[in-house]
């Protein structure tokens, strides 16, 4: 078990190295540099600026010094945000994105699991059909369709929320709903499938034969096994929620990591792009790992390797 975890953790290192290398060289290949939009810079100043950021060095030297700094956890200065390091920018934006992602995950689980359980218990009744088709709506509706439509209805039509921003508690509602409902659909579907499979097994029959109440059968006996598919989906779901935040943060104008990533790509702010991309990659890899470990711990069959 410990060895399995250790091996998985070691396995993430080459992945991160590959991500860092690819993003570095991709950003170097971008036509146009970070200084292109600044008009009329005298040649001497441009040379000075390039020297300051190390852009006058040969490519392999830039790469080596970047990777060296990376090992010390330093992501370098931002090209666009004057006097701010990428580390500072990420540190400022991360809590916002984590809050958004955490809320969205709560929405996904709190809506998805009950929906799936109800659908499974009442299989092939109208309740099941209703729950399953709402799940399908969630799955089919991309965030960038759901988000603007929710804004159109709840912010512009009924004026219940602000259309964008991240200043008040109620500003959290629409973004978290948009991001969470998509995954609620998947989770409901997986819960339903998992529960149906467990409910057909012999030990459930035994529990019923011993006279356990329906609630006890469902919550005590079936749920743990029925949720396994959901747990293994958590890794991809978290990755999806994180990348989904690019769109959500753009739509709702939220000062998070996703918006930094997208705007840095447009600004040719190479260090910020690589920094955020790497950070995202690390986050996704680590969370995937956590989901895998949780799955092994929940499933006795996998615990004995």
């Amino acid at each position, binding site marked *: 078990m410990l060895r399995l975890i250790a091996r998985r953790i070691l396995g993430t290192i080459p992945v991160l190295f590959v991500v860092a290398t690819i993003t570095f060289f991709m950003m170097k*290949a971008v036509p146009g540099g970070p200084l292109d939009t600044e008009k009329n810079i005298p040649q001497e100043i441009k040379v000075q600026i390039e020297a300051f950021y190390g852009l006058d060095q040969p490519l392999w030297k830039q790469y080596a010094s970047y990777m060296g700094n990376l090992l010390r956890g330093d992501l370098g200065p931002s090209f666009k945000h004057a006097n701010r390091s990428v580390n500072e920018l990420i540190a400022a934006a991360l809590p916002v994105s984590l809050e958004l992602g955490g809320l969205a995950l709560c929405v996904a689980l709190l809506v998805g699991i009950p929906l799936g359980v109800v659908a499974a218990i009442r299989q092939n009744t109208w309740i099941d059909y209703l729950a399953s088709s709402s799940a399908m709506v969630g799955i089919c509706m991309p965030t960038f369709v759901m988000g603007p439509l929710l804004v*159109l209805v709840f912010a512009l039509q009924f004026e219940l929320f602000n259309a964008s921003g991240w200043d008040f508690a109620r500003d959290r509602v629409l973004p978290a709903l948009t991001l969470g409902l998509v995954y609620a659909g998947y989770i409901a579907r997986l819960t339903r*499938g998992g529960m149906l499979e467990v409910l057909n097994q012999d030990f459930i029959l035994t529990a019923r034969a011993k006279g356990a109440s329906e609630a006890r059968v469902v919550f005590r006996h079936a749920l743990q096994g029925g949720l396994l598919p959901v747990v293994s989906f958590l890794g991809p779901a978290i*990755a999806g929620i994180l990348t989904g935040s690019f*769109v959500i943060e753009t739509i709702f104008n939220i000062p998070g990591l996703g918006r930094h990533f997208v705007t840095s790509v447009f600004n040719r702010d190479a260090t910020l792009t690589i920094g955020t991309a790497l950070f995202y990659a690390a986050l996704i890899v680590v969370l995937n790992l956590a989901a895998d470990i949780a799955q092994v711990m929940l499933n006795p069959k996998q615990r004995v390797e």
Partner: protein
Amino acid sequence: MPEPAPASPTPPAADAVEPGRSLWQDAWARLRRNRMAVIGGVVLLALTVLSLFGPLFLAISYQEQDLGLGAAPPSATHLLGTDKLGRDQLARLLFGGRVSLLVGLAATGVSLTIGLLWGSIAGYAGGKVDAVMMRIVDILYALPFTIFVILLMTVFGRNFILLFVAIGAVEWLTMARIVRGQVLALKRQEFIEAAVALGLRKRRIILRHMIPNVLGPVMVYTTLTIPAVMMLEAFLSFLGLGIQPPMSSWGLLIKEGAEQMEEAPWLLVYPAAVFAATLFSLNFLGDGLRDALDVRASRD
């Protein structure tokens, strides 16, 4: 190496004694009984025909501007209204449909080709080749690909062809896994052993016995890849990294609509509705196909 296409899906005709129904006839009958899948198929067909031939019957092209008109609500001349440059929204929607559906099909084609080749080679070769190839897939799985597609689109400009390749290159991993699993399972089946024992040539075994049997799950997963791919295209276009105006795609129209939904809600509502309907139909059709072919593996 197995090629998907022309091998006819009907297995060798059973002796004329009993006209048994093939797997494919069976699946077709089951699919037709699935109401949602049939509706999905009809909607898709209708949208495809409209996108392909609709623009031919419109008096206005998708890029014709009427700056004096600006963003006007739906009227008799412009059935779905116009955008802020006075371009006819219906024409843009139909033309966008061509682009979105084309991206869906072409990028899926790319992912299908890579996935099918990679998976079948790994599965058929087995041993060390298999281990190395699947280890590569595992590593790629761990990479955050959405981020790379965004980077790719920035590095190489917002190029139409690149969009197909970039998206297709991202979506082949699951296909490779499915195909490999199928090939591995097939290799051990008795009828393959029987074919080998009968002394059939490798080519014939692959074309006649392997491919028709891998085709089912591949087809199911392909129908489910198309909506995923279309979503990725729309996602990129929404961020401003995919299709560029004056071209049009559903993702781009949704982006433009979302920017002006306060003044001109019709610009958002129609593309969003059409795009959602397409994704629904594809998913229902894919689910229907899966149930009809009874494939459990592709449920991930």
